[in-house]
């Protein structure tokens, strides 16, 4: 289970059935260890992971999740649609579906993609079990052990275990307020070329980045697409949040600019409908799509037929844009609440991104504060975040944290940020005492949300590089 998809309540089951049935001894473990594939060595369990399990406890205000708010979907609606699927299409809904997905569902996907100015044909689509499966299938299809994947730094924490499992050599490119720095990407590609290495693909979340909260500018989008064409490189565009824009002008996805030549597109129903459905999709160049399809056959034959019927019914009976509109309104308010709370409670030495959409804010603290350690302190105050290191494969990100504003009530957001502000201020003060360096006086707390509206990229920090060593 990834950090992103850990729902509240999991990991707290001390009495869950099945837990007490282990009969392994140390010798057994050694025996199993000898059977594990080499790639499992990259699948690490860490102290941080254990700590993340505590964040699911009910007394904790968790800003660590990647969870959308599913309470906006009226329960009676779910019940009515489910009943209808059961009554009208029971036999079909209980049957296997084609590996590539049901045609009726693909028609819905075409509609969703058109919502972001993308033109796609149903036979260019593969329905998957969540967007996460696309990342897995793309790695399965393209990556041999030691192959290079280029990603942003920070990158989606949920992609890290996937990249690790395929033993990829991940090179992370720094970002600023306009997303991945393409000039650094070019330098990196040149450097790799000199070593005779070509990345198998470039992984990017260009719009409302998870975890960084920034959006790639139009100019950089054009450059990236051009670069991919010139160098014949595949780009995996992960776009779960594109429709969740709260402010600013809509930007075309890479897929729209490239028309599916070098861009593999990843979409999902998780953030516009429900993550519990586990339905996502990919649109990819034909030869790649065929291989992805074969990979999916081996993985799970097809995605949940019942879920596909449910979505089709939902699109037929309801206007999906209504729910989207409600989500946008809800999340925009929550984003503003978090930005205001950050301005009010965090010391001057800190900075954070101001997302125009999506679900996350990336905050960066002074480099002497390690957010993996800080999480232990924060948990004593019953608040949690994702330490920045989870978004890197190279040990960077030590003084940053990811904060989710979408899945938490406004009251909890204010209280959670107040508590984080308290522990950060405490550590800033302590460091100042230890070194004799005076902390910077607190800035005036104005309405950060207003400032964000006026100048969306103001005070967005380049994502800081953490000095190596220390741990």
């Amino acid at each position, binding site marked *: 289970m990834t950090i992103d998809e850990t729902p509240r309540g999991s990991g707290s089951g001390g009495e869950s059935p099945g837990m007490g049935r282990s009969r392994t001894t*140390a010798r057994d473990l050694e025996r199993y260890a000898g059977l594990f594939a080499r790639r499992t060595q990259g699948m690490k369990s860490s102290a941080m992971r254990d700590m993340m399990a505590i964040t699911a406890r009910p007394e904790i205000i968790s800003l660590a999740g990647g969870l959308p708010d599913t309470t906006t979907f009226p329960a009676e609606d779910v019940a009515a649609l489910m009943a209808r699927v059961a009554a009208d299409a029971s036999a079909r809904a209980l049957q296997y579906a084609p590996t590539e997905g049901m045609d009726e569902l693909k028609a819905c996907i075409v509609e969703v993609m058109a919502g972001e100015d993308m033109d796609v044909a149903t036979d260019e689509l593969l329905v998957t079990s969540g967007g996460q499966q696309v990342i897995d299938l793309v790695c399965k299809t393209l990556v041999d052990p030691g192959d290079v994947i280029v990603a942003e730094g920070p990158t989606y924490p949920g992609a890290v275990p996937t990249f690790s499992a395929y033993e990829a050599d991940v090179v992370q490119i720094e970002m600023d307020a306009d997303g991945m720095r393409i000039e650094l990407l070019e330098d990196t590609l040149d450097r790799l070329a000199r070593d005779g290495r070509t990345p198998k693909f470039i992984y990017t979340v260009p719009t409302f980045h998870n975890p960084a909260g920034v959006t790639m500018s139009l100019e950089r989008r054009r450059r990236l697409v051009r670069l991919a064409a010139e160098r014949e490189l595949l780009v995996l565009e992960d776009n779960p949040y594109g429709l969740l824009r709260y402010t600013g002008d809509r930007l075309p996805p890479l897929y729209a600019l490239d028309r599916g030549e070098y861009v593999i597109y990843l979409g999902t129903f998780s953030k516009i409908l429900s993550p519990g459905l586990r339905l996502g999709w990919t649109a990819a160049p034909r030869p790649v799509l065929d291989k992805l399809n074969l990979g999916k056959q081996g993985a799970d034959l097809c995605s949940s037929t019942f879920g596909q019927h449910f979505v089709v019914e939902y699109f037929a009976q309801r206007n999906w844009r209504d729910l989207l509109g409600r989500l946008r309104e809800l999340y925009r308010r929550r984003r503003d609440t978090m930005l205001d709370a950050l301005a009010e409670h965090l010391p001057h030495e800190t900075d954070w991104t101001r997302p125009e959409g999506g679900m996350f804010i990336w905050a960066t603290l002074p480099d002497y*504060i390690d957010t993996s350690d800080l999480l232990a302190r924060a948990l004593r105050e019953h608040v949690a975040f994702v330490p920045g290191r989870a978004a890197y494969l190279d040990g960077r990100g030590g003084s940053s944290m990811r904060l989710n504003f979408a899945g938490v009530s406004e009251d909890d957001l204010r209280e959670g940020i107040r508590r984080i502000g308290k522990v950060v201020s405490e550590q800033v003060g302590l460091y100042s005492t230890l070194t004799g360096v005076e902390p910077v006086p607190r800035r005036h707390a104005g309405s950060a949300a207003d400032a964000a509206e006026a100048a969306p990229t103001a005070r967005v920090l380049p994502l800081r590089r953490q000095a190596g060593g220390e*741990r």
Partner: protein
Amino acid sequence: MSRVAVLEGGQSLERQVSLRSGARVREALERLGHDVIAIDVGPDLVERLGAARPDVAFVALHGRDGEDGTVQEILELVGIPYTASGPSACMRCMDKVLAKHALRDAGLPTPDFYAFSQTAFESLGAAHALPAIEERLDFPVVVKPAAQGSALGIRFAPSAAAVPAAIVAAFSYDTKVLLERHISGRELAVSVLDGPEGPEALPVVEAIPRGGDRYDFEARYEIGRTDFVCPAELDDDTTRDAQQLALDAYHVLGCYGFARIDLMREGVTGDLTVLEANAIPGLTETSLLPQAAEAAGISFAAFVERVLDLALARTPA
């Protein structure tokens, strides 16, 4: 046959390890024919103990609350016999500063150290003492939170410049930290188990981090990145000395039932020194105490049964 409440989980950072220890203990208890009740320790602990009315509690908790004497005080209060050490020994073991003072007072070797509370820095100007400390301890200096298991928050400061950040990190885990002289050498763990003849030291386990990363402490605690050798490859004298030192530490700290004493054998001189004591060491499949017990011919079930008998035999404080 007894009615046994297994206390596990809780809110400490070592919750996950505790759940694994607890699951393994429950499984052994059930096979031994006991009536087992699992209790995930939380605000309703006293209530649940009252409802369950166990004959005895098996404490499979690690870290804050469970290993620091808090839960033990509650068990004393409600009059339920429980496994392992009592409140005072738990407090001494969990707080590395208290433990090291007790060891030093008793003449047992432990690396030189200086300890500070957060107040000492904030209100008493302790920061001004840092240069003197750094001079006396030499670099690298090890910075540790006083009360935290599983090596969380432990850092090596290679130079004076790295000390403040290391102290800030350690204060994330506790309000008291210690700066300790770094000992390079072999890491040994000696588990001690009480029995009819009094406490006995089990075979020595050596932890060898893979790849030889001297400063990579996480390696010790990540499965697959550390090799454990049991019994450790030591000459007879060293083995005997290590076991004796562990027994001495066990007595000085006032432990009961079982405990694990972590030692260092200095690389050049071969001197043994006590790093810390664990009042409730891990009982998972990969934990050191069960491995050492197995090496001594004591199965996990036999270990659990013996610890339970000891708990029932103990007269309440």
